[in-house]
């Protein structure tokens, strides 16, 4: 029997039982669609996590004070105030051109902000002058403050684009003045407020959400020295030093260099007892990649289970079909069908069911991702249907056709012609 004829008779019998074929396929359709959609969501999520991390700047090495520990006991959340602006300057001087740039940061907390009659509440951060280089974050207007602004503790500010819109609407923020207010003293009559004027010198370009639910476009940056002296009073202390390596490959070496510089400055000989911690962005990416990979695998497995259930449905229907068509099998054998012919016929029927189901499932899966895109909360999630996913989904559904169609087809092929012909 030619393959063409096997195909023809398989398709014929599927068309004759339209409703049954459609319902059987539904199992595979849902299975494949869920694998496609789930893996797309998983891939999309992991890509978003990666791009979020990289949007904080690429090739970053972050130095933070280590948790205070005393003979192995850690203070809860307490951090030593042992990183200084001088540490950052030392890294800059000693490592020179082996690093791309670095900056230090000190958070100054939330402040009430007023400007041109508008009120707003946002985070204020003290940073050093190379912040835009380290963070790959250009300005949309104005300039970033300079090293000399740091030297004189200038009361200047660069604000995020959201902050600018909230305070000044569509108007130009550069050159305007904003006021930071902080209430102190008791409540009621005794309460007084500290008011500090800052001149706006620049507005950062829009970066969008971090994906962790907070907007990085809503913040105010001031020179770190100004933050230390005027806003927090924590002189010379920094929360974070961020170093940008020249390339991804250089990160391991740079991490080592940074660690050595700081160990030397802090007079620590044993790296294990360092009072700071150095985090390499590559490590973070790898760790998060592993997490999101597991997540994707989990989602795929859930889809895979429904695919398996669909496959069992195929086997069930094929067994019913073989039973129902026992007489047909007898007739075909009487006129000369060999075992292989009957086996092929039923196997191809099963594969056609799963193959079509697979193709429709891919279309449905794609449609689902399109619908998910329309949901506002998920609109920013990139949903990736890769050719690999599609190939695997089709391959798996055809394989399911073979695996779950084989047993019924073998039963059909093994039927004895006389018994099959007498079957009522």
């Amino acid at each position, binding site marked *: 029997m*030619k393959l063409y004829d096997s195909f023809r008779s398989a398709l014929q019998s599927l068309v004759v039982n339209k409703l049954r074929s459609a319902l059987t396929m539904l199992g595979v359709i849902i299975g494949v669609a869920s694998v496609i959609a789930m893996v797309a969501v998983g891939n999309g999520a992991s890509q978003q996590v990666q791009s979020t991390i990289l949007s904080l700047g690429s090739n970053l090495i972050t130095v933070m004070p280590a948790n205070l520990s005393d003979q192995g006991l850690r203070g809860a959340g307490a951090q030593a105030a042992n990183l200084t602006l001088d540490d950052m300057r030392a890294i800059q001087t000693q490592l020179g051109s082996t690093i791309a740039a670095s900056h230090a940061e000190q958070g100054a907390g939330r402040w009430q902000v007023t400007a041109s009659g508008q009120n707003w509440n946002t985070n204020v951060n003290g940073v050093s002058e190379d912040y835009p280089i380290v963070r790959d974050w250009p300005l949309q207007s104005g300039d970033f403050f300079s090293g000399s602004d740091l030297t004189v503790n200038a009361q200047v500010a660069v604000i995020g684009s959201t902050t600018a819109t909230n305070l000044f609407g569509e108007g130009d923020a550069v050159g305007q003045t904003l006021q930071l207010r902080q209430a102190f003293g008791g409540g009621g009559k005794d309460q007084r407020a500290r008011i500090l004027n800052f001149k706006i010198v620049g507005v950062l370009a829009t970066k969008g959400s971090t994906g962790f639910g907070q907007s990085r476009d809503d913040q105010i940056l001031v020179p770190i020295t100004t933050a230390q002296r005027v806003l927090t009073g924590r002189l010379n202390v920094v929360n974070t030093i961020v170093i940008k390596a020249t390339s991804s490959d250089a990160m391991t070496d740079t991490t080592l260099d940074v660690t050595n510089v700081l160990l030397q400055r802090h007079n620590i000989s044993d790296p294990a007892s360092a009072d700071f911690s150095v985090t390499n962005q590559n490590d973070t990416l790898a760790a998060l990649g592993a997490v999101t990979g597991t997540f994707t695998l989990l989602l795929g497995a859930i889809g895979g289970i429904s695919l398996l259930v669909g496959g069992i449905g195929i086997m069930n229907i094929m067994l019913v079909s073989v039973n129902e068509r026992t007489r047909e099998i007898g007739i075909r054998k009487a*006129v000369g069908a060999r075992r292989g012919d009957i086996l092929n016929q039923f196997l191809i029927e099963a594969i056609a069911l799963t193959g079509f189901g697979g193709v429709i499932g891919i279309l449905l899966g794609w449609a689902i991702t399109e619908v998910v895109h329309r949901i506002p909360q998920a609109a920013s999630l990139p949903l990736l249907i890769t050719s690999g996913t599609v190939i695997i989904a089709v391959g798996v559904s055809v394989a399911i056709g073979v695996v779950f169609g084989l047993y019924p087809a073998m039963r059909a092929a093994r039927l004895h012609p006389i018994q099959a012909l007498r079957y009522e």
Partner: protein
Amino acid sequence: MNESVVQLRGITKTYRIGREITVNALRGVDLDVRPAEFLAIMGPSGSGKSTLMNVLGCLDVADGGTYVLAGENVNKLSDDKLASIRNKHVGFVFQTYNLLSRLNAIENVELPLIYGGDRKQRRERALAALEQVGLGDRIHHRPSELSGGQQQRVAIARALLNDPSMILADEPTGNLDSRSSAEILSIFQRLNDLGKTVVMVTHEPDVAAHCKRVVRMRDGLIAHDELVPRPRRAEDEIALGIGAAE
């Protein structure tokens, strides 16, 4: 021609029902069928005629003895070899027609050529066979749209398709009225006149009276084997307006 189409020697077949009961369906059957014979196999139920028919049609294999069909020894052939033999040498006509209900007439007739033969000639030969049984105008009808007699004619066309060595008919008129029976028998007679070998299992003496030779079975053996001196002609009966089995 001296060469027999069918040569059975000492054919035995035993069935086992349950664990203990065995039935000797055939107990050493010798039979020769020569080309262009029209043979009826008769006998009461349980006489072994169905088993003999299954063995003749290579649907079943004998336990003992030798069977040579069209010069080929078919003893102990594998299932797939037997399938090829059936495809090439045997054309089956069943009491219940056994057409595939979802295929139309011509597709049913084409079936044997799907499992052997040239695809290009398929339609052409199927059409010729249907014309031979007088159904050239109904090729796209489904079995459900045809009368019993017409369905049996489609089945005969299917049996003819591979130009088999022998047409094997199992009670071909059993489900038909006398008029249709006469038509079917006249087709067999016409084919036989053209040189086809026809073996027919029947329990109706009126039907057997149309054959040239009648073999009677009893208890797994051939009890009588005789030539019919003057077989009845079905077409004469149709012309006279009487059915074959009346």
